[in-house]
């Protein structure tokens, strides 16, 4: 077992070291000379800045969308629904999570394509077709869909732990329902929401399959560039250097999340 862990760790360390090497442009062989050219290119070339910005921006947008979609449902599950409905809903949220990832992306290709369900429904109620297949909008929708259960579950778990007596106390003290939601429920649910956002944010950040399948011409993600540098360009050092970007972003994100107490809610 120890050698297995060692192989994994050795791979990661090797990857980090490779990031500081480069390749010979003619032979595409790895040249083992220490340099920081890869990182300089990533930081100075506007193409890569755009790609990093797009990836992180969409990851943030997906996270916000999922918070908005998940919170009312989580609140309903934790505070309003009966025990039976609660456990049914819990199972219903978990199931799509386990249904094949590719299958769920593919389903959206079927829905969003030119003659798909979306356009058909819009046209049958007299609206113009929404041709959003193969765009950044499609990516936003698909990512929000795929990672939604990851947001619902921790938010639900956090809300479930808010004692009803606190809400009753707030009401006794004269707080209106919206007031007590804002001042009592939200602060207590925040660690759960942040825990969910770790999943939605990091999963979007590292993805490259969805951009390939539902994205369009201007939809490249960090992962896509890494992927093509390993597969097609065979420039592993550059891919490795670029792969450190999402890891660094996540490290900052996790440190912030830890301060907000999200780890206790995981």
């Amino acid at each position, binding site marked *: 077992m120890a050698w297995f862990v060692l192989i994994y760790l050795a791979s990661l360390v090797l990857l980090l070291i490779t990031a500081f090497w480069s390749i010979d442009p003619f032979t595409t062989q790895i040249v083992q000379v220490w340099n920081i050219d890869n990182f300089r290119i990533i930081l100075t070339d506007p193409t890569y800045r755009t790609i990093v910005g797009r990836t992180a921006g969409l990851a943030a947008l997906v996270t916000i969308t999922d918070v908005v979609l998940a919170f009312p449902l989580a609140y309903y599950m934790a505070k309003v629904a009966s025990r039976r409905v609660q456990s049914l809903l819990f199972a219903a949220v978990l199931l799509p999570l386990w249904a094949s990832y590719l299958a769920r992306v593919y389903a959206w290709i079927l829905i969003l394509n030119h003659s798909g369900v979306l356009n058909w429904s819009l046209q049958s109620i007299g609206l113009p077709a929404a041709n959003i297949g193969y765009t950044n909008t499609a990516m936003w929708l698909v990512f929000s869909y795929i990672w939604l259960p990851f947001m619902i*579950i921790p938010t639900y778990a956090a809300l479930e732990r808010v004692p009803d007596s606190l809400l009753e106390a707030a009401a006794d003290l004269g707080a209106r329902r919206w007031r007590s939601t804002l001042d009592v429920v939200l602060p207590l649910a925040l660690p759960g929401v942040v825990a969910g956002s770790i999943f939605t944010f990091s999963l979007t950040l590292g993805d490259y399959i969805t951009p390939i399948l539902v994205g369009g011409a201007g939809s490249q993600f960090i992962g896509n560039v890494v992927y093509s540098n390993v597969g097609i360009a065979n420039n592993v050092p550059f891919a490795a250097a670029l*792969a450190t970007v999402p890891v660094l972003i996540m490290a900052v994100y996790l440190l912030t999340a830890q301060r907000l107490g999200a780890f206790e809610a995981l």
Partner: protein
Amino acid sequence: MIAGFWTRVALRAWAALILLFLFFPILLIFFYAFNTSNIESWPIPGLTTRWFGSTWNDPDVRAALLLSVQAGLAATAVALVLGSCAAFAIHRASFFGRDAVSLLFVLPLALPGIITGIALNAFFSFGGVTLSIWTVIAGHATFCMVVVYNNVLARLRRTQGSLIEAAMDLGANGFQVFRDVTLPLISTAVVAGAMLAFALSFDEVIVTTFTAGSQSTLPIWIFGQIRHGILLPEVNVVVSFVILVTIIPVVIAARLTGGGGTARVPAAR
């Protein structure tokens, strides 16, 4: 009163809409699997079962299915042994750096799949290992192991040490304690972990992309077909099948662990 009447109505409607949002796309695929036309447009013109036969007779699909099953079973077997051992070690021992090691075990799930993928890819090419089914198994075992480890460790933490002490007081030796007390207590967690591990492996694309050579597993085949937009009727059938294969073990695992195991959302991508 936690919510007023209209708030309740609104929340209930919201819950219904989200459920529809979650399940509609999945159900849609099953419809498309019976589509008479080979053009994927809505509404589908009619229902047929002919794609099931042609998919089953497609040699590429069969080869991919075989590889997926082999890799899934082997990775699960490796994960069962290593994951359970790791869980026992972490649970029993209190050695220096235990927390660091336990963090290490979850790393393959916490890091994006592409990092694990290119790290293993770089390692294999550096070490001169040819990519084959064995490298796929090694790649899958990294994250499968974590699932088994998590499940077994969670169960070990919940079982009472006094049971084992009682068995020892009654004169059982180490092996007897393991066989008659520990194993029955953790067996459902082990089985649940194995089921989840297989479901994860059967659906994995990213690590597989970087650790498989020229051969494809079922998800790699699906990915290729969707990407190039060919043989989509067969894709519908295969995808429906994969949904069932990944969901059924998870439902069983949830029954075995009372839902706990499946909720610790492992994201191996």
